[in-house]
């Protein structure tokens, strides 16, 4: 019975880990094209979820709310790129770190004042009554998260491999200067990557909202774990984030069982610092050759 409980905890944790993986995937998208990430991505997740909640409140059906929220995420992603990232990249500085933190803070404050500081439930048509699979309880809600995450990641990868625009994306990721010499606009491609990154962040927010409830602080712990997943897996490792996400989700679920729920953030943070110390390019990342 005890073993079953542990497995149960690990499985529900791992399913939550899929959300971290999805947000981490958003970091990878922008890192690939521009070597930059949005430090305010958590606020993007949260704002998209709150916006979707407002759409639901206006009476829109769930199946229209999802694309609506995702579109909102794209718009926010584009805004972050324009206001916080482009100038710093043009100046070849790391000013984008500070600027994206600042934009995140602005978004947080706006959310506090527009939607209030309280956490609210997020209605969803997907049932949350558990089903038994091999003696373990899994809710369709949790499964929907996993399926949604894999589906959107698969679609984005398909887009990158099969469409011309996607190939431009890959070209800029491989070598920005060479791609520009071939007539691909790096600026447009980086814009595209931030748009896509906003899209997956918004989807992450919509998927996780029914489980965590929605409020300004909903993403503040989520994002730390997404950072951990991205760094531990490697910022350029593709599907490595899924494995690490599953692992970290299970690990923190067990930590909170053994040490108390206050410590549940600890393993991710320790893992991140350790990973940086041992493998700075991540478990699945490639070491780059320094050139002079």
């Amino acid at each position: 019975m005890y073993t079953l409980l542990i497995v149960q905890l690990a499985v529900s944790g791992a399913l939550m880990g899929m959300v971290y993986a999805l947000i981490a995937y958003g970091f990878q998208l922008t890192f690939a094209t521009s070597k930059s990430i949005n430090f305010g991505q958590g606020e993007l997740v949260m704002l998209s979820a709150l916006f979707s909640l407002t759409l639901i409140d206006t009476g829109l059906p769930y199946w229209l709310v999802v694309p609506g929220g995702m579109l909102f995420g794209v718009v926010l992603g584009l805004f972050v790129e324009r206001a916080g990232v482009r100038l710093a990249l043009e100046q070849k500085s790391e000013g984008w770190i500070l600027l994206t933190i600042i934009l995140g803070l602005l978004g947080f404050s706006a959310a506090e004042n527009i939607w209030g500081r309280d956490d609210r439930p997020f209605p969803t048509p997907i049932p949350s009554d558990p089903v038994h699979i091999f003696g373990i309880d899994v809710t369709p809600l949790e499964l929907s998260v996993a399926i949604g995450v894999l589906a959107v990641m698969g679609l984005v990868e398909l887009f990158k491999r099969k469409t011309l625009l996607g190939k431009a994306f890959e070209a800029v990721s491989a070598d920005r200067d060479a791609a520009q010499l071939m007539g691909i606009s790096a600026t447009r491609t980086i814009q595209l990557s931030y748009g896509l990154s906003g899209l997956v962040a918004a989807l992450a927010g919509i998927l996780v909202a029914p489980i965590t409830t929605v409020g300004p602080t909903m993403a503040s712990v989520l994002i730390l774990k997404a950072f951990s997943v991205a760094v531990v897996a490697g910022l350029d490792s593709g599907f490595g984030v899924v494995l690490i996400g599953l692992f970290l989700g299970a690990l923190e679920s067990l930590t909170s069982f053994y040490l108390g729920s206050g410590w549940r953030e600890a393993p991710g943070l320790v893992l991140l610092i350790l990973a940086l110390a041992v493998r700075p390019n991540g478990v699945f990342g490639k070491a780059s050759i320094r050139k002079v």
Partner: protein
Amino acid sequence: MWKRLLLIRGAELAVLALLGAIPLLVDNSYVLGLLTLLAIYGILLIGLDVTVGYLGQVNLAQAAFLGLGAYAAGLGVAHFDFGMLAALAMALGVGLLFGTLLAFPALRLEGPQFALATLSFSALSATTLNEWEGLTLGAQGLQVSRPPVLGMTLDAPGFFWLCLLLLALVWLAMRNLLSSQWGRAFEALRDSPIATDAMGVGTYRHKVAGFALASALGGLAGGLYAFNFQYLQPQSFGYDLMVILLLGVVLGGRKSLWGALVGATLIALLPNLLSNRELFQAISAVGLLVAAVAGARGLLRKTTRPFQALAPIVAMGILMAGSLIVENTEDWRKAIFALMLFAVVVGLPEGLMGFAAHFLTKLFRIAPPPLPAAAALDVVLPRQAADGSALLELRDLKRYFGGVKAVDGVSLTVRAGEIHGLIGPNGSGKSTAVNVISGLYVPTGGDMLLRGKALPVGSLFKVARTGVARTFQNLQLFSDLSAVDNVMVALRGVYRTPIPLVLLGLAMGEEQRARAAALALLELVGLQAQARTRARDLTYGDQRFLEIARALARRPELLILDEPAAGLAHPDVNKLIEIIKRIHERGISIILIEHHMDVISELCSVVTVLDGGRIIAAGTADEVKRNPKVIEAYLGMTDDSAGAAAPALAG
């Protein structure tokens, strides 16, 4: 000289005296509280500026170190019955310890990964302070009593004077440190970590030291914070405070003690400025005006990009509109910080003090400190024996990148005192060979001996310390440092003062000697007149010469010049030849990688030709030029047209 000293030191003393006198003039506990907070933030921000300003890394852990220091001091008093000074020492020590522990893993990283590591550390420290209830009482909060100092109980003004005294001491110590080799090394490694290592300065240990120091100051400030508020809660040291601290450093001005003080003043006053609606409206109006004027000026003079001029105006415009609409500004505190930070980061990257410094230097016509007379070259760069003994030996050296055999079994000997030319078509492995010798790449196989002893492999830093110096094909100057500072960073065997004495300001004599030596080397390459020019503002040719002077500051036995003539105009090429001859006269052995055959012919006694990672010819310049294999490698011809090709090569 005196005017400069008088104005700058005078301003420091005047501000200190003014701050110290306020409690005597005004009997107001609220004002006193603000002043105390200002002094504490001052110490904290001076520390944060070391990482954010000098090392150029976004450090998100300073608020966490403040918290750790505060709890350390509080618990020291509660559990060990420490006096104030012992508790403060403990706070400083805790900051130093955790700073060092975090620095070792985190500082192998750059940019975003570093920021993430510090962010994780902050979250981890907040979790621990919250959850370790047995020690910290968690969210309930910890009462701290203010212990006596050397048996004396401090009242509020007394405690403020203690904080101010510590701020003054920290200020002095940091001024000494940052104007020494340490400060130069911090700035150098921000501009080019690779060159910093290649100059034997040691990127990693300087970064670790800088970060540990910053954290120690955070801890000290935390100790004072604990005794000021006498009540601690984990959530006081979270993300919000971190953003406010960054606002302080950026708004005040990076890389400046004055900037840190201005920043500390602003963030100490900020909550009060925001709570008064009229005052807030006035501030946002001033902000909008400044952004509009600065933006318009930048646009008209075309010194800024449109975004850089317009974005701050938009941000300040939103702030202004908000101040008129919003009833309770306290609710929008974070957004207000964000808008202000955004406008400053985009529109005024040098901060208020950076801006004011330009202005004040012009207003008072403050001359830069005078340069000493150049030292004698014989002292700076003593003549070495050019006895033709084997200096560097490569035996079957190999370096593969995957399947690419960039260097594939190269054996050669460089003899003391010779200029050894290394030529070959593009992609023949010259630069890779040099990168392996200088420690940037680990060899795939083979041996490298310097004077019969194995050369360290795979570490620029260690190789630099054995007496091998190099320049870079793509310039790797410390672009924000002046020419003379570029050379000073690399000087070998001058900086001996241990760090405690540097903090006490006892490295002045050493600094003057170093500067005189650097000037002698600048003279050698003809740059004495540009000693104060920032490296990035030098002409391209002068930048190449500066790299050579900087490499010479290592007092090398072996100097590797990686395509020094690349991109040089003809007069500069002649100047380069003169410089290399002068270096050669001092008995320094040189490996010269070049494409210009006339440079090679004029300078080199021995030439080795590489192609496809292998040696295809060796001998004097003339022998090599006539070698059919060489002609084939360069021109792709095989047989009797060789004779006709030789003159083309010589040109």
